[in-house]
């Protein structure tokens, strides 16, 4: 690591995470909260977790939105995608390599079974996470320094490691030497304790009186009804007053629900976005960066947000990186749609009369996808780009679009869409690495430069310096366009007006339920 002393690293780390070391900065609700009452909400988003009666209380097998009701993590990403401390009171790099991180945990935190949380519980929990959670696999081992301090030893330096500690799977559970048993009882430190579980269908909670945040939660009971893919059933339940809130509603419903009496629509600052993967296998048109740039420049992104999502309250313009617009590291695109540039680039690439692209495949993973791609199809036509589109069934779509990473086998991945959610900047930007399908297996000097910048960012503790690197990476993506990320949607929830302080979150699994209360 060049020009990066231990003193610099520690100093920068202290500055960077100094803010985190203050008390948990979660804003107090404006109105005076009222204790008591129950809240029933339906969640509609797809969930890949297949819990059953044997494991449905385990954080890995719950519907992901529920996890934080019963469990906590060491850190938390807030509604503006900024890192906050949760069960940790301090997270700092132990040396300049950023390979070792030291975490001090909050004292006096109790699990639902009454036990006091110690660093051993954290170590035991991460023994599971580092084997099973994709984001934690970089942890080589943990080292308990004392009952409230633990060190994480990573396989490489990672300036964004605290974000890993905020991953919703990386919860703290009571220690268990048998990692196959850990978490099965459903005991966490969260604001609510689990009282009942019907796998993939329903979960009930009651207030945990010894919750570490004094005075929280406000609700006595919480009930979650899983209605993924059953939007109509959930809506009927809401209208029949069976539910007090519905999470992740279809954007098409927003206009209709705005007319619903005593109902508030709560958009998050951001949400998932669509990635258009541009394959760069032999013979592909997308090997030519000018074609990729022309395609990107021809898309009317503002129009896409306006027509498909109904405006910037419900959607946002992307910048061809995996970063969400709400991310503090996101650099807004400087130029909008540029048809003249698109036509010029096509002409330079040998297509002065326009070009017909291969068929773009998509699956209706979101209800608005057909409109989304029809709009893009019309939008790029004005630049002379003919874009055939084809909808594929959700069932088996992943395998259909990814093909085989080994292009020598001829089973190439497709010119296709996938969806991505907002994560921390490091993980998000890493997704455009050459070895990943989402980048269309991008290669060449620009890709190498991109990865060199990424490697530098991972070893840069100082946030401002890292921001500059990330900005450079985004600029590179806008120039090279390995993939196109035109626009995203804001997560939207609806709730009764009597439900107070229910804030939506770009990562819907990170919604805090401990601050929610009912005025009636």
């Amino acid at each position, binding site marked *: 690591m060049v020009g990066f002393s231990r003193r610099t690293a520690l100093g920068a780390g202290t500055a960077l995470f100094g803010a985190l070391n203050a008390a948990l900065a979660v804003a107090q609700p404006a109105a005076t909260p009222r204790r008591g009452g129950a809240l029933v909400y339906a969640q509609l988003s797809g969930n890949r977790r297949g819990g059953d009666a044997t494991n449905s209380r385990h954080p890995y097998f719950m519907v992901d939105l529920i996890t934080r009701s019963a469990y906590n993590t060491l850190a938390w990403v807030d509604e503006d995608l900024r890192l906050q401390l949760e069960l940790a009171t301090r997270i700092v790099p132990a040396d300049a390599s950023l390979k070792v991180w030291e975490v001090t945990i909050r004292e006096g935190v109790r699990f639902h079974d009454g036990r006091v949380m110690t660093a051993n519980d954290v170590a035991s929990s991460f023994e599971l996470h580092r084997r099973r959670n994709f984001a934690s696999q970089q942890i080589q081992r943990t080292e308990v320094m004392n009952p409230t301090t633990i060190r994480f030893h990573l396989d490489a330096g990672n300036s964004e490691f605290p974000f890993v500690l905020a991953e919703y799977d990386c919860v703290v559970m009571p220690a268990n030497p048998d990692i196959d048993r850990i978490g099965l009882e459903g005991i966490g430190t969260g604001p609510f304790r689990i009282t009942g579980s019907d796998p993939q269908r329903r979960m009930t909670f009651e207030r945990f009186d010894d919750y570490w945040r004094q005075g929280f939660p406000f609700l006595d009971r919480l009930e979650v*009804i899983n209605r993924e893919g059953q939007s109509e059933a959930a809506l009927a339940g809401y209208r029949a007053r069976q539910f007090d809130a519905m999470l992740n509603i279809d954007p098409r419903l927003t206009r209709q629900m705005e007319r619903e009496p005593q109902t508030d629509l709560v958009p998050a600052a951001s949400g998932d976005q669509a990635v258009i993967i541009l394959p760069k296998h032999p013979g592909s048109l997308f090997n030519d960066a000018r074609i990729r740039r022309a395609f990107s420049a021809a898309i009317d992104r503002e129009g896409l947000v306006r027509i498909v999502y109904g405006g910037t309250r419900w959607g946002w313009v992307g910048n061809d990186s995996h970063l969400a617009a709400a991310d503090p590291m996101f650099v807004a695109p400087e130029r909008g749609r540029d048809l003249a540039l698109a036509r010029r680039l096509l002409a330079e690439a040998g297509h002065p009369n326009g070009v017909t692209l291969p068929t773009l495949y998509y699956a209706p993973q979101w209800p608005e996808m057909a409109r989304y791609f029809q709009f893009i199809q019309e939008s790029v036509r004005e630049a002379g780009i003919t874009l055939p589109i084809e909808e594929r069934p959700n069932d088996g779509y992943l395998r259909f679009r990814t093909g085989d990473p080994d292009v020598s086998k001829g089973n190439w991945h497709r010119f296709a869409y996938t969806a991505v959610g907002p994560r921390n900047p490091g993980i998000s930007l890493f997704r455009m690495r050459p070895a990943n399908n989402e980048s269309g297996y991008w290669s060449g000097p620009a890709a190498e430069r991109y990865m060199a910048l990424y490697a530098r960012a991972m070893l840069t503790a100082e946030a401002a310096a890292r921001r500059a690197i990330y900005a450079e990476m985004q600029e590179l993506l806008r120039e090279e366009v390995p993939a196109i990320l035109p626009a995203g949607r804001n997560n939207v929830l609806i709730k009764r007006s009597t439900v107070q302080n229910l804030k939506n979150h770009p990562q819907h699994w990170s919604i805090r339920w401990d601050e929610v209360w009912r005025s009636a």
Partner: protein
Amino acid sequence: MISLILRRGALSLATLFLLATFIFFATEVLPGDALDVSLSADEVAMMPPEVLARRKAELGLDRPILERYLGFLGGLLKFDLGRTIITRAPVADIVAMPLRNSMALAAVTLLLALPVALGIAMAAAQAKGRGLDNAVSGAAIIGYSIPEFVTGLLLIAVFAVWWPIFPATITASTDDPLSVLLAAAPLAVITTIIGSIAYLGRILRVGMIEVMASDFVERLHLSGIPRWRILLVHALPAAVIPGLSAAALYAASLVSGIVVVEMVFAYPGIGAELVRAVTRREVHVVQAIALAAAICVVSFNLLADLGISTLDPRTRSA
């Protein structure tokens, strides 16, 4: 009679073996596997191919098809339905409660629908060609033609949203007592009953009309037997015979999953579980549910055959 039972039983077992084989290979053509669909886009993006391959091997997803088929058949012989791929839970545990719930919904539906359908069929047959018959036939055609999801949504709109006397969606748990579950599902029950009455009523009406026009009923009339006695004691059993097979198949279809009704009302039955299992590529669960449905059809057919043999001795030598 015993030889009939043995013959039909052996035939049923052979049918089930063929069905089991078909079910196994049918699940093989599903694209992707349980690991594919259990991973999020994030995980797929971050996980190296060699880790994916290792996890597939750990879950047994890389085993040859013949090995898995023999394992499947061997398990069936031991009444072992296997375990789920991702969580290793016994498949029997996953399927048991939804199967119980679907059977309960089917039983309640048949218990309520059959007497009504019989009454309507008898009344319509008695008034053949007149206003009542035309009204019943018309209503039956409409009741049978309207898709169950339309009936269900209409009932929800009226009785859950406009006039909220029933829940719109069932929030009871899968393993709640049946009394709790069915009490939470009045609209689902009414939806299935409407379709059932229409279907069974039409079949039974035709049977009743045929029997009432037969020579033996004519002779009974001439013998001076009261009309109500002819209808209930003599005509009804004969009229039910042709409808038994159709009714048995209908009952089996109710048990094996009224998928649409279960999805509209979120009823925790076997149909909804099947949809979930297919989506998650939990092929062992899919196989178990498909097999349970096949067993239902074969068993109800067997029962119908035995019922027909009991009611109509002429069929016993067949």
